[in-house]
């Protein structure tokens, strides 16, 4: 056993020194390898933490939202629905919501206008919910509303805007923002505050507005609301309650939060997967490059292996040497790529592919992601990069290792 370890030490030492002797050749490979790992890792870290961020934020969103659908299209909801819903067994509370999209011609962006609920108690009732894999409570406090306002009161004629809007329009607290209402009048609303940066993924394009102003802007009658949020007593009854709502109000469409979450998951998984599929061409090119590097042994290398075999190294010793060589290169590239990607995504805001992955409009959020990496991501990354490299080099390694030992007797000149 001892001599086996000693032998591996000798072989690793020799491998390291022979890698260093061929710096130029190996640095090229290493740089490319690191780059591949870096790009893949950045992509994965990015989609993963954005997914997580979104999930955390959605955890604070209402469990069930009920919309009205007319001819397959989302329509305004009569306020009477509220009583019908409240009467359903299992419903703890229900509250109406008023919100809508507003297209700003000036900056060509869509805002989300929202009337903050008057009594926050309706949306956030504290009770215990058993959640599998409860996320660390670091990011979002469940009891806080999404749109956190630093105590500023919203009055008629004022708005509170999200950071994205503020950036885009270059306005701040105290400025006026003009809106074109449904009947063609211009409404000038005063910005009294901006939203906290905490949950910018959701609130970036958000504008908080009073109910009065909202109805004036969109021309919505008093007896209509956009949709309703519902809180149920027992989370496991959610599907039953949703079915009951659907039955009582045939035109209503209940949407369960977990379904939004699931959709979100799929979309981000799909995006991440898509990027990898696109990127697989690059991985393939790299694998071919690695194959080529490994099989195109220089005369010097062939000679070296020939000498080793002549002086008493066995084929499997040479294979072991090459294995260590691959391991050293792979691990170096893997860890540098991962570390670089970590810095890139979590400390520098992934400048390289933010636009591609977020796919938001001009108003895209500018927030820093909470660093989050787990073993699953690293294993996946390992499989997607190190595995192809390793496999691509097996046959070339074996070829190199089976050079005839007596070839050393036929080397001439230097």
């Amino acid at each position, binding site marked *: 056993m001892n001599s086996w370890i000693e032998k591996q030490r000798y*072989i690793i030492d020799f491998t390291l020194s022979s890698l260093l*002797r061929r710096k130029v050749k190996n640095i090229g490979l290493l740089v490319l390898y690191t780059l591949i790992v870096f790009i893949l890792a950045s992509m994965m870290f990015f989609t993963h933490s954005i997914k997580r961020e979104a999930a955390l934020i959605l955890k604070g969103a209402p469990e069930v939202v009920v919309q009205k659908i007319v001819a397959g299209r989302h329509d305004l909801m009569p306020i009477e629905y509220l009583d019908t819903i409240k009467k359903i067994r299992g419903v703890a509370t229900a509250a109406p919501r008023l919100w809508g999209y507003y297209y700003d011609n000036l900056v060509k962006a869509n805002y989300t206008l929202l009337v903050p609920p008057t009594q926050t108690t309706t949306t956030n009732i504290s009770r215990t919910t058993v959640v599998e894999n409860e996320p660390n409570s670091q990011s979002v406090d469940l009891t806080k509303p999404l749109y956190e306002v630093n105590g500023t009161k919203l009055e008629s004629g004022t708005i509170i805007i999200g950071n994205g809007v503020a950036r885009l329009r270059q306005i701040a607290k105290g400025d006026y923002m003009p809106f074109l209402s449904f009947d063609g009048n211009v409404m000038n609303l005063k910005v009294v505050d901006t939203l906290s940066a905490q949950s910018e993924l959701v609130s970036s394009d958000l504008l908080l507005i009073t109910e009065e102003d909202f109805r004036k802007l969109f021309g919505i009658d008093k007896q209509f609301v956009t949709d309703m949020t519902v809180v149920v007593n027992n989370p496991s009854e959610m599907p039953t309650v949703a079915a009951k709502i659907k039955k009582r109000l045939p035109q209503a469409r209940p949407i369960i939060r977990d379904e939004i979450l699931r959709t979100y998951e799929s979309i981000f998984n799909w995006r991440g997967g898509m990027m990898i599929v696109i990127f697989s061409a690059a991985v393939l090119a790299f694998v071919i490059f690695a194959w080529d590097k490994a099989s195109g042994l220089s005369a010097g290398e062939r000679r070296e292996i020939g000498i080793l075999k002549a002086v008493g190294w066995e084929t499997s010793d040479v294979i072991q040497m090459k294995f260590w060589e691959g391991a050293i290169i792979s691990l170096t590239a893997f860890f540098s790529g991962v570390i670089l990607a970590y810095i890139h995504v979590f400390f520098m805001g992934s400048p390289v592919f933010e636009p591609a992955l977020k796919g938001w409009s001009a108003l895209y959020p500018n927030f820093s992601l909470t660093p989050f990496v787990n073993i699953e991501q690293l294993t996946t990354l390992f499989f997607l990069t190190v595995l192809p490299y390793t496999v691509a080099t097996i046959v070339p390694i074996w070829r190199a290792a089976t050079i005839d030992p007596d070839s050393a007797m036929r080397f001439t000149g230097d």
Partner: protein
Amino acid sequence: MIELHGIRKVFNAGNPSEFTAINGANLQIAENQITVLKGPSGSGKTTLLSIVGCMSRPTAGRVHLNGREITSLPERFLTDIRRKTFGFIFQQPNLIKGISVLENVMLPAYPLGEKRSQLRIKALAGLDELNIGNKSHSNVEWLSGGEAQRASIVRALINNPSIIIADEPTAHLDSKLSYRFMEIIEKFKAEGKTVIITSHDPLVYDAAIVDRVITMRDGQIEV
């Protein structure tokens, strides 16, 4: 004692370039003797030497080493026998560039997993014996031809082999160095080692210490 029976070695069998390098060689090489193989270029000396030294296997025929049949052994076993029994000195020093003389000399012992400290002592002693101890930490590129060859001799001896095989060892040496080489060979014999040399060089095959000269021609041994 090495015995060869009906050794044939065919290269590229079945191809148009098929070539029989050795054709039915029978030979016995006695222990503790200096044997020289001579013959014209291309007559198969190196090929025969590589078969004797367990570096390659004959296409047909049997090789016995100290009574043990080694022809059909797997490469693993052949290598094991080779590194413990044979020391090789090549026409070229065949040192690996970029690492020190000491490391080069220790190379054959790496797969055996000997303790590093002991191995170092052995290697340094060997280098000292051939008067190149002061070069142990230089790069091999800086060595002169004679020094490089002596380094390769130390490497051949690192696992303390009982048989030394040298293929045209003096081809690149001037006559002074060649004499020096023959002195080293004489010392081997005094230590009880068997030496097999191929050479075109009269300085080698006419030397007084040589016990036996074998002539090869066209892949066969002349008697």
